[in-house]
């Protein structure tokens, strides 16, 4: 009975070509664009040297100096600063001796004479410094010896777009976008999960009503449906990761199996989320699809698909949220492979995904447990 349901569930979902193709094609197109747009930059960036920078008005913000000194101690420092007055600094900028001029102080700003990867890195760097100045100040005040650790942690948590090599993993400039892309495909699994909820509920679809008239218990056909969608979504995720790895040549190094695992689990989370949305109340199907799509996009947005640094900002303001946002979990778990040597953080993120899926499925099953309806 269960296998019969599962078999036909798989068969029908694999044949719902338009759905799958669109869920896959959009991210693939997007990924290709990323590659075209940023891939070139990446090639330059891997050979990127320490960025020469001039800092003006360092007396306004002594902490900044401490942070920079800390960075300069690293093996391959992100930047090397000279402390100059404005006139000298601008002269060096004009001569191309430095890439940018940072004005330290409460209102930090950056002046550059060109656009490019190094300039962007500087911009991101001072943005992050500004946002995190508070925390850094506190550390300095309480225990300056911890500063190194704290800066490192902050940078990592924000998944910054810079090339500071914390470990020997890949730190592409655009690779974060690829991670987010994988997260997006995972989130789109919500659409298939939604169909399962709708297709098994007598008050949501004629098919659901018809199934409810049969001697196959609803819980059984629903579970078969969920597991079927998980499998189908897992296949989608494998295709998606393979595409980024082998066609777009994103270099995951020896972490590739972990990337597959995180992506598959992300897909499962996406399906579970959709199943939950499908189970809540009676709305028009199109309404639920809209909720799923918007929800997925919102998760991706908040995880940094459109704006790279939004996740850092959230990490600052609502640290819990990144552990509740499935898209951020997928992207973070993969990027943690590059940023940390151990897999502890990676597996923590995976645990969160499992937890979220379990909650969604349980809530969905509770919501659909009813067997008789007031109206159809």
């Amino acid at each position: 009975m269960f296998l019969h349901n599962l078999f036909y569930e798989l068969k029908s979902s694999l044949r719902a070509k338009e759905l799958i193709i669109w869920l896959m094609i959009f991210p693939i197109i997007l990924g290709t664009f990323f590659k075209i747009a940023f891939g070139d930059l990446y090639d330059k960036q891997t050979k990127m040297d320490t960025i020469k920078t001039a800092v003006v008005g360092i007396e306004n913000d002594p902490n900044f100096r401490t942070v920079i000194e800390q960075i300069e101690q690293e093996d391959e420092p992100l930047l090397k600063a000279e402390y100059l007055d404005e006139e000298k600094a601008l002269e060096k900028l004009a001569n191309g001796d430095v890439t940018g001029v940072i004005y330290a102080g409460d209102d930090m700003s950056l002046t550059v004479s060109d656009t490019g990867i190094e300039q962007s890195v500087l911009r991101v760097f001072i943005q992050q410094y500004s946002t995190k100045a508070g925390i850094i100040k506190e550390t300095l005040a309480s225990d300056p010896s911890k500063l190194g650790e704290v800066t490192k942690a902050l940078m990592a948590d924000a998944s910054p777009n810079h090339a500071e090599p914390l470990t020997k993993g890949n730190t592409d400039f655009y690779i974060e976008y690829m991670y987010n892309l994988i997260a997006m495909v995972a989130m789109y699994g919500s659409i298939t999960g939604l169909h399962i909820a709708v297709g098994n509920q007598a008050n949501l679809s004629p098919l659901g009503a018809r199934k409810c008239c049969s001697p196959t218990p609803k819980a059984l056909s629903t579970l078969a449906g969920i597991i079927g969608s998980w499998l189908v979504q897992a296949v989608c995720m494998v295709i998606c990761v393979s595409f980024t790895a082998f066609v777009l040549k994103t270099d995951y190094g020896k972490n590739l199996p972990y990337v597959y695992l995180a992506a598959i689990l992300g897909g499962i989370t996406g399906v579970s989320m959709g199943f939950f949305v499908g189970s809540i109340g009676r709305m028009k199907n199109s309404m639920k699809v809209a909720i799923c799509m918007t929800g997925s996009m919102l998760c991706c947005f908040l995880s940094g698909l459109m704006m790279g640094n939004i996740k850092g900002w959230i990490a600052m303001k609502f640290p819990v949220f990144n552990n509740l946002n499935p898209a951020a979990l997928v992207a973070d778990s993969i990027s943690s492979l590059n940023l940390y040597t151990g897999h502890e953080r990676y597996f923590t993120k995976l645990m969160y995904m499992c937890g979220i899926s379990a909650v969604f499925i349980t809530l969905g099953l509770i919501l659909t447990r009813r067997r008789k309806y007031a109206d159809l």
Partner: protein
Amino acid sequence: MANSVVKIDNIVKRYGELLALDHFSLDIKEGEVFGLLGPNGSGKTTTINCLLSLLAYDKGDIEIFGKKMTPVSYDIKKKIGIIMQNVAVFDELTVYENIDYFCGLYINDKKLRKQYVEDAINFVGLGDFRKFYPKKLSGGLLRRLNIACGIAHKPKLIILDEPTVAVDPQSRNKILEGIESLNRDGATIIYTSHYMEEVEQLCTRIAIMDKGKKIAEGSKDELKRMIKNTETVTVEVLGLTQSMLDELSALPHVYDVKYDGQKAVISCSGGKHNLIRILDTLQKKEVSFGRVYSELPTLNDVFLEITGKALRDKED
């Protein structure tokens, strides 16, 4: 007396303010082809859905095969075949796969199921279409697929909710013949429709419903005997005067005369030779008339007489 297969006892079903079933009762015996006839919105589908325990009802009891029907009465559900008003099939599965899927919800044994699916395909005549997807089927073929999905597991009780809506007369006849043969093979049938011809042709017993109430029940002859109309004579005739109409009304057994300037519709109750008497009267007055026809009462007349309105529009 045959056993009761379905017993609906005084059920009341409300959708908010709307009273959809108003103390509705039915007792359907084994081997019957039971017709549930009523205009749109009279509560046929609601009755079926309550019967299947899909809908919660406010009052009353429902028994099927002598046992109380609940959503978890899987042993009862096993013996029911349901063809819903809304076609419920998977768009992504072929004709064969759809039937196999639904049959598999009832029958575990693979070999037996294969046989049953083949039987169902032959039964609805979809042999040439087994690899077709539902989207490629015409409306009538799709309805036939819907039926095949409902009956493939050879149920003892088959419920069909308006299976012939939007089906051309040829397909419709095929469907009706099929239902008759299912009945001959021993299945009890519940058939809802607002097409009275179908119900007259097919059903051994009929309940007429309106606004959630059962307004009459019996075999078609019993139903027709309930009303006073026994014959309706229609005469195509131009320029009848009021005095002529009065004279027709005064004829024995005539209880109603309607005239719209082109057609006189004369309703009679009992008696013999009504047609001859009417034509005699017209001839004596040297009125020339066109086509003349006499009709025996239909279920529509029954409905008309009990509720004061037609079962449905003529052109429907």
